[in-house]
């Protein structure tokens, strides 16, 4: 399955639901979408990886880029990831210490 992107609003946060595969081919679409949200003046963005089956380093790079951009524009930024298989790649790269990771959308939107 390829990338799917959908947004919904939960407790004043814009939740970007990502599904499918985030890889070197599809990651640019995710980057674009995150930029759109942040540049559109959205103050609180949550990227929900709940339906992601596969993610590579390009996906990680896009998340770090989004996080940096959120600081520039003064927005809050969170990443929801509960799957062990995905958490592993955040841990290996040390990005679990850099990115604000949450176990659930609830946790991210009430943080």
């Amino acid at each position: 399955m390829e990338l799917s992107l959908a947004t919904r609003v939960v407790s004043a946060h814009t939740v970007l639901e990502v599904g499918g595969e985030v890889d070197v081919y599809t990651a640019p679409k995710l980057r674009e979408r995150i930029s759109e949200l942040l540049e559109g003046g959205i103050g609180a963005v949550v990227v929900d990886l709940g339906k992601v089956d596969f993610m590579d380093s390009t996906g990680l790079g896009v998340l770090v880029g989004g996080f940096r951009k959120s600081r520039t524009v003064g927005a809050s930024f969170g990443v929801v990831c509960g799957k062990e298989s995905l958490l592993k790649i955040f841990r290996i790269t040390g990005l679990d210490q850099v990115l604000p990771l949450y176990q659930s959308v609830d946790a991210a939107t009430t943080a």
Partner: protein
Amino acid sequence: MATVRLEFSPEPAHVRTVRLVGVAVARRAGVADDQLDEVRLAIGEACARAVARHQRLGIRDAVQVAFSDGDRYLVKVTDKAPEPEQLDGEEQLTVDVSVTLLQGLVKDLQMMPLSSGSGTEVRMGWPVKRRSR
């Protein structure tokens, strides 16, 4: 002898295809099921790296991948790109994250320049279960 060889033009769209092939051949070779996610990710990383190296310098040559079975499942990814002069911040981040991921993921990993000509080779190996034949 390589069981399957694959060459693809350096486009991100093909990396997914190579992952599919890599996992399919791994399964047949007898790699344990619980290692297939790692195989998928590692092959994807090595190929994404090769594609990025070619694209950064506008190199149109194919990226080559060889999959061999036997005592171990061996995957070799070869690019033809010379080292780039200077990377911008996000590119460097991606390169660093990619290498960190590969090194953290694959115990049996070698990355080295080609012995002749420009380019690098990433070699990765995984154990296979003995199979009844």
